[in-house]
């Protein structure tokens, strides 16, 4: 199995505070990897490093090596906008733009230079279908996206991310703001998306990691404690700290 992301000895500082310590991880293609760990352990920070969203925060310093398909993502030759097109992101709180459903999905392709109406229509439909929301919204594409329910909004955000045809999706606790029914729909969707995309998902919910992911990475205090096949990590964790966490002794 080939890897899409490989990280070597990566550290990250917010000013004086070291938030990530010597992270080493290889993320396999077309799989679902879950990042688990208590709040403030660095899992979201690490996720946002992969598409360089942390660049926007002042005073962040990163060392080490992150390769996406064998390209160093911090190389000066890399265009960060292109990297973010390749690696899409879905946020914790559904954040559709205050525009129509159509314009939300078309925003990415338009940004990257597609103006042909027929082509855009196709992309919008394909993205909405892939995000399993097409049937619910196909009759109201011109309506404001903020009128959708929370779960629908999150699937719309997934569609919006898919519309730029990424290879990879980063999801930062995508179901934490949703009700159980919407959550299970998103989980089903994520498992379907694995066919085409590599997915990395931060989650607070260990059942969710078990249900959905192929691999699980456990973070604690800025360290990557353990990274294993999900089945293994939950049945026979190698590290005492992992065991304590998944058996609910802390966090």
């Amino acid at each position: 199995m080939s890897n899409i992301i490989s990280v070597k000895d990566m550290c990250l500082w917010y000013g004086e505070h070291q938030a990530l310590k010597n992270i080493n991880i290889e993320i396999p293609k077309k799989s679902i990897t879950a990042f688990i760990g208590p709040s403030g352990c660095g899992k979201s920070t690490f996720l946002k490093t992969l598409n360089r969203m942390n660049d926007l925060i002042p005073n962040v310093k990163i060392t080490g090596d992150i390769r996406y398909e064998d390209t160093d993502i911090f190389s000066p030759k890399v265009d960060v906008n292109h990297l973010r097109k390749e690696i899409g992101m879905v946020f914790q709180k559904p954040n559709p733009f205050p525009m129509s459903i159509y314009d939300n999905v078309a925003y990415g392709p338009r940004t990257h230079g597609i103006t042909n109406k027929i082509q855009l229509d196709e992309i919008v439909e394909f993205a909405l279908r892939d995000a399993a929301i097409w049937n619910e919204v196909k009759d109201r594409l011109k309506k404001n996206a903020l009128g959708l329910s929370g779960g629908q909004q999150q699937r719309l955000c997934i569609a919006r991310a898919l519309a730029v045809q990424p290879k990879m999706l980063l999801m930062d606790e995508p179901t934490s703001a949703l009700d159980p029914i919407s959550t299970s729909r998103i989980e089903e969707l994520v498992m379907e998306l694995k066919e085409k995309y590599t997915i990395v998902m931060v989650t607070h919910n260990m059942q969710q990691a078990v249900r959905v992911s192929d691999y699980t990475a456990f973070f604690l205090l800025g360290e990557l404690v353990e990274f294993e096949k999900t089945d293994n990590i939950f049945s026979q964790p190698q590290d005492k700290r992992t065991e304590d966490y998944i058996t609910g002794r802390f966090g």
Partner: protein
Amino acid sequence: MLNRSLSKKRKSFEVLMKILMLLSVGLTASLVLFLLVYVLVQGIPNITWELLSTKPSYLTEKIGILPDILNTVYIVIATLFLVLPLGVGAAIYLTEYASNKKMVGIIEYAAETLSGIPSIIYGLVGMLLFSNNMGTCLMAGALTLVIMNLPTIMRTTQESLKTVPQSYREGAFGLGAGKWRVVRTVVLPGCVDGVITGCILSVGRILGESAALLFTAGFAHALNGIIDGLAAPGATLTVALYVYAKEQGEFGVAFAIAAILMVLTVLINFVATLVQKYFAKRRSL
């Protein structure tokens, strides 16, 4: 794959917007700088002790702006003296007494309307309402300014009252205090911030006002004490500037006044920011 750079179209959009933004900011900044420097350079050489300490005389053909300075001070005092109780009272009614949402909406809409009415209209109404009854005098001007500044005082007081924690009021009510006692002991002390901010803003506005005063307070330059002054017609600094520049062509004097007004404006802005910062800090403690 990843090292593809932005398309030409996107890049030119970036560059164009950046240039336009920087040009606009540069233009705004240089405008402020130019106005400040130009007015001070033209005005300060014309400010003499004689100008500041005398009244204009036809005999010596010399111009002094002491009456205008005093008139400005009188009108500021009179306006604040009248507008404070009204504005603070209105704000207290809105935050403490009004229970009818519709009523609150109407009052706030009225306040917004008042702050949108141009000063020339205030001048006209002030003339009809006050000057036609009590004669053209500083007091008529002050009364006009009271209406103009009412929304400002009301708004700043309201904002500071909103920061008085509900628990204080509940605490006082819980001790069996009547409404008026709660307002007097808990609410009124809470509006000091707003009153001070409102006063500073109002002073700025009164200093800069001219259109509303032309036909209400008039443009005489007589030297009076405060009581006689308020009952007599008189020009404030801004009105005097207008008269000297537009009607008499005395640009030296006009620039001297402009420089004084400019310095006062800078000063008021500075104090306003300082005060706001101080209150924000105290509130967050």
